[in-house]
């Protein structure tokens, strides 16, 4: 069984998973790794930072002589948490609403679908800016804001998938033997909805990580600590790009590879389970 999965998902899939695993593990165990302190200033007397990549600083340093490699790893902590929490929130709230709407149909479905449409036609970034600018810019607020934005797309997929399954024989059969709504949803529908949602979760996590970067470029990302978006922003001025491009390009490459890996893994899972591109 596992052999066939390996074959069908392809080596690239495992490469992507491997990359994600490495990044996650590095992020998770960052404080115990033999890397430099991300917040220390490694000033060399007589030399004005930023210092270019070298044996001491693999990815170079920023304008303040802080080690980019360490900062990227610590930035992963924030960026990945944001991505994970956001999509988890979207899954729980949007998934539940979508399944219930798809199962119950009728008025509930109309209302829920309308709410989804409102959120989908709202320029999502504007909503994110509104919330972060008017509330605060803590990790939790930003992760949950992006989570709220994930509700509608996730919910729509969950609803569509539920609709597709709700009339299938096994559901009708379950209902015939007297199973309650809750039981049908949890036992019969949920397992079928989970896989396409899982694929979407990976894609959604990528979207959330990118969204954090977007917020950072508008100056609205997490206030304290490095994030990938903030690291790129600091190196993105014309002067920095011209004189010290490594500041921006280190985090860009890591961010890009991570988003790529998430997209690819999500894509593969989707086609492996032959999930239709419902609502994506």
């Amino acid at each position: 069984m596992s052999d066939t999965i390996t074959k069908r998902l392809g080596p690239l899939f495992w490469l992507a998973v491997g990359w994600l695993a490495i990044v996650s593990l590095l992020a998770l165990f960052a404080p115990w790794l033999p890397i430099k302190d991300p917040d220390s200033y490694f000033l060399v007397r007589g030399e004005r930072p930023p210092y270019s990549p070298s044996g001491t600083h693999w990815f170079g340093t920023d304008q303040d002589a802080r080690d980019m490699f360490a900062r990227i790893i610590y930035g992963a902590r924030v960026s990945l948490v944001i991505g994970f929490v956001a999509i988890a929130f979207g899954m729980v709230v949007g998934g539940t609403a979508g399944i219930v709407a798809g199962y119950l149909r009728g008025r509930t479905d109309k209302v829920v679908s309308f709410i989804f449409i409102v959120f989908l036609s709202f320029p999502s970034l504007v909503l994110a800016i509104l919330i972060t600018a008017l509330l605060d810019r803590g990790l939790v607020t930003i992760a949950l804001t992006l989570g709220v934005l994930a509700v509608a797309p996730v919910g729509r997929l969950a609803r569509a998938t539920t609709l597709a399954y709700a009339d299938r024989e096994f559901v009708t059969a379950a209902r015939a033997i007297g199973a309650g709504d809750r039981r049908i949803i949890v036992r019969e529908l949920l397992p079928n909805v989970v896989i396409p949602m899982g694929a979407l979760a990976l894609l959604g996590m990528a979207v959330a990580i990118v969204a954090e970067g977007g917020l950072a470029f508008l100056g609205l990302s997490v206030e304290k600590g490095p994030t990938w978006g903030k690291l790129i922003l600091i190196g993105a001025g014309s002067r920095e790009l011209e004189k010290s491009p490594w500041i921006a390009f280190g985090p860009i490459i890591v961010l890009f590879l991570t988003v790529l890996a998430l997209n690819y893994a999500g894509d593969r899972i989707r086609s492996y389970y032959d999930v239709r591109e419902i609502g994506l």
Partner: protein
Amino acid sequence: MKTSSSHRSFRRLGAVLATAGLLVSACGGSDDNEADSEPAAESSEPAAEPAAEPAEEDTLGETETEVTLPPDDDADSIFGGTLRYGLEADVNGLNPSSSALAASGLMMANAVFDTLAVYDENGVSTPHLAESFTPNDTLTTWTVKLREGITFHDGTPLNAEAVLVNFNAQRGDPLVGLAIMPFFPADETAAVAVDDLTIEFNVNFPIADFGSLVTGQLGMVASPTWIAAAKEDPTLNQAPVGTGAFVFDSRSEDSVTRFVRNEDWWGGDVYLDAVEFYPVTDGDDRNNLLFNGDLDALHTTNQASILDLLDTDDYQNIIDDTGEESYAMMNTAIPPFDDIRARQALAYATPIEEYVELIGLGVSRRATQRFTPESINYNPDLVQVGNDPDTAVGLVAEYCAERGEETNPLLGTTTCTDGKINIELQWSGPSVVQTRIAELLDEAWSVGFNVTFQELPQDGHVLQTAIGQYNVNTWRQFGAVDVWSDNVWLLCATINPAGLSLNWPRNCDEERDALLFQATAMSDLEARAEVLKQAEALINQAFTYVFFTHTTWVNSFADNVRGVCDHTSPEGVKMRCAVSGRTWLSKVWIE
């Protein structure tokens, strides 16, 4: 083009001059300057004042550019041309009585408005739009006489009534009024029209140089007709009407504001056909526009941009770091910084050396007080402590042991957690540099402090500071040319426990107040300096400010721009060339 040696010599000289303090003072011309005299007589003579040569002249004097300069007294100012000027930011209105004008706004306002007084090269006021300033014996009543025959761009005559309208409009504005209130009684006795051209101002305390109060935004006189119209139709705030050398032409917010020559300016000939102001918020972008010839001039405080500007010899740079200081400031009204030990601890923990190196980039000098070392008011005995984490840790321990259970009302936590003081650091953003500063401070302060970040848009930052909702913040202020204008930020009288305080740290010291008032009433600058030094020592001892650097302003002009510092008062008194990033364009011409 430039040899490396001339390059280096320029930079070295630049460095010497940078330490020479008020670089702007000697800028431009040599001798006699009558407003209506032939401008040829005013054009610069670089060799005349070698000792105090400002950087601007330096670029001209040290490089081939100078060769292209026409021989001095034969140089005729040329009429024509449009000067394109790059600003740090745009403003949301150009009404001196209702818009809060910072450097960019004042730069534009300078084109269209004239101020009642201007600073001379010694930083003392001299009459400009006004003809004279006469005090009573106690220096509490000042009679201001206006010049005759001046009209605004819309034909309204300049008279006492016009000045009163401006004064009252400014006092009535919630924001602009803040800056005036401390000086004047609240009722209508503050300003009274004596006759058509004379106004009497009554002030709250003796002021030796009243004129300096009206050299900036408060001294700008706008057409009363326009002020009234702008009250009805606020869009007119974008189309200012003054008496200035340039007449408002058009404005597209965040893009360009254009003024054209005032053909019959009371101050004499205006050479430029037009000036156009372009707000370019990014310092590097602004530089690039200048380097590509898309701009003829700019101003900047961005140290990295300044490095680039000084790196090329093709521009005339007016360098001035006598203006504002950058510092961290603590709110002494609430715990923990109501305790001097907490303030001392923060000061000792502050990484000032790193700040000067990383943020100052060798451009902005380390500050220990409000004055630069070249100022006569500079107190050489004062030290700004910092980079001493051990002392800081000791003070924190002492504080926490004694007062660690109290509440920090801002955070809603106890003042100390795990032996460290809890504080919130507030700054104005979003800004990459400001964020870097916050991280730099946090890294060093963390030896004794748990720092929470609070980044606010500029307006919000000012508001929270004004109403005392902060522990410590980063700030930029002081450095008024006339020194005593800074009193509003320091006096006990400007503390308002329930509302807005202009004494942001809410730190009251009667002894310091007495000295400041004394200095304000003194005309003898040498004697006054001694008093100011004592006041400065008291500021230092209170540990309410942690001074970082003196802000460096650079006004840079392409090398074909002439007459940058040629403006004079009508009596021919040479004006100070630049004040905190703004210059005057009335006598500028393009070669």
